[in-house]
């Protein structure tokens, strides 16, 4: 029994880690992503947010005390970066989770049930695809009060699924004709088994990658909306930082460059790390590569 547990640990933790390390780009992405997650989730517990206005320290350049300098009110930028990530990550994760859930559920049902249901889903999807999202969000923002990042995430998630759904449906349509799926049908293993045990494992890489790319999309949408001031929610957030830096004229002072560049750099780094990490994911989900053959 211990052997089986050890085997399980190996296949769930050690093997994926080994595979991740094999792709250098993916491994770099993995490290940066881990660092950002750690900084944004654990960081705030140790680094207090600097909220006190200090008029004698406006736009100080980076120094040992303030490694990224200070903002228009003399507050430490680094502490804002540390605290500003959580909401961005939360919105990205939640919104992509919602859109993925919709895409996976309805995409696979659509492919499996076919007929009228399929036509209905595809029509709705096509309509959703043709709506320009950004203007719609801007208009919605005028009517809906965004008080929390969760609300924003839900809204973004509800708009982001159509492309993913179409691609997923195509995948399922091809996978469900595979010989081993037919064998499972003949063996009467049931629709649940066929979807979750035969088809899903062969789509996990695809779903994981689409999920991560969905997160990058959500990051852009939310930061864009916040930066343009269309979603005026308060709090500390990389998007809000850019918005503030922009509206308070940080771009006009050479000493204040880090105020606007730091959140932009964090967002860019976060996006890059996720895209790079997807390179490793494909290998993690492929048993052939996982087994090191």
């Amino acid at each position, binding site marked *: 029994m211990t052997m089986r547990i050890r*085997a399980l640990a190996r296949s769930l933790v050690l093997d994926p880690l080994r595979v991740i390390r094999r792709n250098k780009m993916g491994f770099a992405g993995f490290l940066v992503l881990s660092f950002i997650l750690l900084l944004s989730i654990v960081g705030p517990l140790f680094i207090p947010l600097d909220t006190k206005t200090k008029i004698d320290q406006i736009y100080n350049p980076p120094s040992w005390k303030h490694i990224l300098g200070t903002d228009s009110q003399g507050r430490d930028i680094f502490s804002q970066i540390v605290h500003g990530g959580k909401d961005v990550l939360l919105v990205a994760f939640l919104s992509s989770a919602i859109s993925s859930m919709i895409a996976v559920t309805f995409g696979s049902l659509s492919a499996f049930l076919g007929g009228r249901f399929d036509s209905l889903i595809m029509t709705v999807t096509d309509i959703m695809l043709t709506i320009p999202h950004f203007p719609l969000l801007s208009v919605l923002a005028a009517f809906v009060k965004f008080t929390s990042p969760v609300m924003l995430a839900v809204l973004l998630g509800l708009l982001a699924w159509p492309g993913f759904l179409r691609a997923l449906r195509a995948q399922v349509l091809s996978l469900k004709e*595979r*010989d*081993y799926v*037919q*064998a*499972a*049908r*003949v*063996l*009467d*293993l*049931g629709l649940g*088994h066929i979807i979750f*045990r*035969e088809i899903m*494992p*062969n789509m996990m890489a695809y779903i994981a990658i689409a999920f991560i790319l969905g997160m990058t999309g959500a990051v852009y949408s939310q930061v864009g909306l916040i930066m343009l001031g269309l979603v005026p929610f308060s709090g500390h957030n990389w998007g809000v930082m850019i918005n503030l830096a922009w509206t308070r004229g940080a771009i006009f002072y050479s000493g204040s460059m880090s105020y606007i560049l730091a959140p932009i750099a964090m967002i860019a780094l976060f996006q890059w790390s996720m895209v790079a990490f997807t390179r490793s994911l494909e290998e993690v989900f492929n*048993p*052939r590569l996982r*087994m090191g*053959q």
Partner: protein
Amino acid sequence: MMKEQKNTADARKAAADPVIQMDQVTKTFPWGGSILSRRRTAKVLDRVSFAISKGEVLCLVGESGCGKTTTGKLVAGLLNPTEGRVLFHGADIWKMDPQKFKAYRRAVQLIQQDPYASLNPAHSIFDTLKAPLVRHGIVRTQEEALSRAKELLQTVDLTPPDDFLFKYPHQLSGGQRQRVSIARALTVNPEFIVADEAVSMIDVSIRLSIIALLSRLKNELGVTFLFITHDLAMARYFAWEGRIAVMYLGSIVEIGTTARLIQEPLHPYTKALLLAIPEADPEITRHKQTLPVRSLDIPSLLDLPSGCKFHPRCLFFIEGKCDVEVPQLTPREDGRLVACHLRSA
């Protein structure tokens, strides 16, 4: 002579209580169709009838595109007929109550052609075998599953089973994968197996061992077979005491006991096919008298020839008859069935 009479008697018995029976089954598939072109139908099977009785082997032989794989899928319940019925012990499988259908599903299994596509790459061999065992309540515990899976691997000559149990398909050779596919079909103790080109993608040197394994299932477990192949020599070898059905463009043109059909083919297509086969024996193959065909082009399923479908290629074509009248599969006194105007005249 004695043997032939016995075979005829067997054939009659087969008709009386078949495990699987195809009753005038037609299958069409829609083809194309857009704003610019009319939607057409491809008639893949055209009123196909045959019956297979317990313990028997029926080989379905034909060239690519003749509908033999579609027939296999219909028998295995993966497709439903456009017209006609597929019967399991006399009951239409698509009109069964769910309980009966479940029993049919377990009783009829399928072995596919491509050993590289028939196993899920994401599952270990044990997982592949365990799923049906657990699903159908054949085993209750992990230990039972393990020991049953080992037995099955032993049955298909993957020994010692421990070497294979936790491997993934990509770690096995084509022949080994095919054995796993067979073991998977055996998990539910089927009484009927559809083997669709089960050895055509296997290396020559190990092909025979898979055939031997299937023969053993037939002889020791009493499994009834529909053996689908393009290889008449392999059909003859596997169905030495069984029957062969020759299919052309969705219709059965001839059915008979293996020995009689090979010795004295009655349908011009069967004859042309037999005489054209290259044989692994230089003396035999270089001195074969081949029967030429009038055309090498196989007609499209979207635009089938009128009358007998073989008439545009047939050397014995009778104008005004073969291209007008559809020949019916007619029984002859030796128990054989042939669909040819030459033979009914």
